[in-house]
C-alpha cells in the first residue's frame, strides 16, 4: 500500500540546511495499523506530511497505492489527498459554521461525486454520529468532533487513513473511544491506518510500531493485537 524508499527531507532555514528525514525505508501493507512514534523533533510530523502528500520528499521514492507521488504537482497532489488519503488531525480541523454533515460532504464536493448527502450520512452513521448530522462543530464535544472528522476522512473510501495525534486534544474517556473506533475500522473493515503519536498507551492499539529518532527509523516491531 505504502512504500518509502530512501526518503529524505531537508528544510532550508536561510543558509542552513536542516535535515528532517535522513533516509526512510518503510513498507506498509494493506490492512495494517501502524503507529509511528518518536519524540518531538524526531521527524514524525515531516513523515506524516510526506505520507499525507501535503509535502514532497527532497529525494527518494514514495509509492502510494501504486502511484509514485514524489514528483507530482500541486493539483495532482490535491487529487491524491482527495481520493486516496483520509486525514484525522489533532485539533479536529472541522470547517467552522458548517454542519457536521456538510463537513463530511466536503471531500465529495471537491471530488465532484454524486450522492453526496447519502454517502455523508452513511459515514456519520458508521462513526455513531447520525443524530448529530446538522450540528455545527461548536455544538459538538471534542470526541464527537473527532468522530465527525473520522467520518470525513472515510467518506471518499481512501486507501489509507492518516491520524496525526488524533487523541491529543481529548480526555481519557474520549481518547479510548476514538482509538476503539480506529481499531475497529482496522480489524473489521480492513482499513489501512497510519497513526502518529508520542503516547505509548495510544500506540498500543496499533498492530505495528515504528519509532523514529533524528530522522531515522530506530525500531520497527509488530505487536500482538
Amino acid at each position: 500500500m505504502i512504500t518509502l524508499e530512501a526518503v529524505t527531507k531537508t528544510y532550508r532555514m536561510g543558509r542552513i540546511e536542516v535535515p528532517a528525514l535522513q533516509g526512510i525505508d518503510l513498507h506498509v501493507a494493506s490492512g495494517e495499523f501502524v503507529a509511528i512514534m518518536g519524540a518531538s523533533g524526531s521527524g514524525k510530523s515531516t513523515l506524516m506530511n510526506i505520507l499525507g502528500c501535503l509535502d514532497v520528499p527532497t529525494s527518494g521514492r514514495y509509492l502510494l497505492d501504486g502511484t509514485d507521488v514524489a514528483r507530482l504537482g500541486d493539483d495532482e497532489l490535491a487529487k491524491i489527498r482527495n481520493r486516496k488519503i483520509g486525514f484525522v488531525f489533532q485539533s479536529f480541523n472541522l470547517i467552522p459554521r458548517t454542519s457536521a454533515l456538510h463537513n463530511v460532504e466536503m471531500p465529495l464536493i471537491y471530488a465532484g461525486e454524486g450522492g453526496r448527502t447519502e454517502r455523508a450520512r452513511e459515514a456519520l452513521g458508521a462513526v455513531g454520529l447520525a443524530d448529530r448530522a446538522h450540528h455545527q462543530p461548536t455544538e459538538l464535544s471534542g470526541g464527537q468532533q473527532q468522530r465527525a472528522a473520522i467520518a470525513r476522512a472515510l467518506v471518499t473510501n481512501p486507501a489509507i487513513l492518516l491520524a496525526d495525534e488524533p487523541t491529543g486534544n481529548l480526555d481519557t474517556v474520549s481518547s479510548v473511544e476514538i482509538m476503539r473506533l480506529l481499531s475497529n475500522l482496522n480489524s473489521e473493515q480492513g482499513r489501512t491506518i497510519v497513526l502518529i503519536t508520542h503516547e505509548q498507551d495510544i500506540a498500543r492499539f496499533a498492530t505495528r510500531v515504528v519509532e523514529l529518532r533524528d530522522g531515522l527509523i530506530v525500531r520497527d516491531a509488530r505487536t500482538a493485537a
Partner: protein
Amino acid sequence: MNLFEALRMAANGLLANRLRSALTMLGILIGVTAVILLVAVGNGASVQINNQVQSLGANVIYVYPSNARGSGGVSQGFGTAQTLTQADVDAINTRQQDPDVVAAIPIAQSGGQITFGNQNYFAPTTGTTTDFPLVRNYQVAEGSFFTDDDINARHRVVVIGQTVVDNLFAGADPIGQTIKINRQSFRVIGVFAQKGGSGLGSQDNVVVAPITTVWAYLTGSRGKIISQIVASASSASAVTQAETEITTILLQRHQISDPTLADFQLQSQQDILNQATSIATALTLVLGAIAGISLVVGGIGIMNIMLVTVTERTREIGIRKAIGARRRDILTQFLIEAMVLSGLGGALGIAVGALLAKEAPNIPAIATSSFPTPVVSLPSVVLAFCVSVAIGLFFGIYPANRAARLHPIEALRYE
C-alpha cells in the same frame, strides 16, 4: 465543484460576518446608486432638450444667408449678407426639383416694443407667409391666421403667442384688439395654442404678421430683407434629402458652381438636435465618470475585506486543501465571495438609485425647478450591474489568488 456549491460556500462565508459583509456591500451600493442616479439625471436632461427641440418641429430646415465674400475674398461675418430673396422662396415652393419639401416660408425679423393700453412688453415680430403654422408646427387656438389677401394688401394684422397675451392682456380677450408695435397700430386676429418649452427661447413669445406688412411698417430703411428661409421636409427621415434638394436649387439660382463658396447655409432641426444630444451625452458621461470613482472606492473596500477574510480563514483554507481542494477550487470560492458581495451591492444600488430617480419629481424643491426628471435607462442598469460584478472580479482576484497559493502545511499550522 459546481457553481451551486461555490455559491453556497460564498454565502456561508459572507453570513459568518454579517455586519462586515453589509458594510462592504454598502460601498458598492452607494457607488452604483450614484452612477444610476447621475446617469438618470443626464438622460433626463437629454430627454428635456430633445422634447424642446422636437417642439420646434422635427422636419424643419433653416436656410441662413452665409458669410458674404467681398471681391478680395474677405469674409464679412455670419449673417452680414442679404442673399436670400422672395424668388428663392418661390423657387423652393414650386416643388419641381424638391419633392421632399412640403413648404418654405420667408422670415423677416423685427424687434419692437409692443404696447396695449398702459401695458408694454417686448417680443420679436416675425414677418412671414400663410404657410407659417404648417412649417413651424403652430396651431391657431382663437381667431384665425392671416391670408394671402392680408399679405397682398399689407394689412396690419398680427397673430400672437400665449406669452404675449399673458403679458399684455391680463385676462381680457385679445381678438379684435389693437396693439402698437413701434408705435404702429396692428389688429390682433388670432392667438396661437401654447407650445410650451423653455430654455431655448420660448415658442410662445411670438408676434407674427404678414411679411409685406413687416417690410412696409417695421423694417424701415432696411428694405425687403429675408433673414432666413424656413422649410419643412415631408418627414423627419426626408430631412437630409430635402436639404440636398434645397442646396441644389439655391446654388443654381445664385449661380454658384462650387458648393464650398455657397452664400447661404442650411441647418436642420436634426443638426441642432444632434448638437444638443452630444452635449447631453457628454454631460451624462462626465456625471457617470464622477460617480464611477465612488464605485472604484467601493471595489477597494472589497479587496481590503477579502484580504482580511483570507488571512482570518487561513486555517480553513489549509483544511480544504488537505481534504482535496485544488488551487482552482479555493480561487473560485473566494472570487465568488467577492463577486457576490459586489453583485449584491450593485443590485441593491440599482434598486435604491431607481427608487430615488422615481421619487425625485415628488420632491417639492425639484418639482418646481426646471431640473430634469431623471430617466433610468435599461442599458445603464445592465451596465451598472455588470460593472459592479466586474469590480468584484477585479478586486477579488488578488486576495483569492493569495488564498489559492497558500501552502497547505503552513495554512494548517496557522493559528
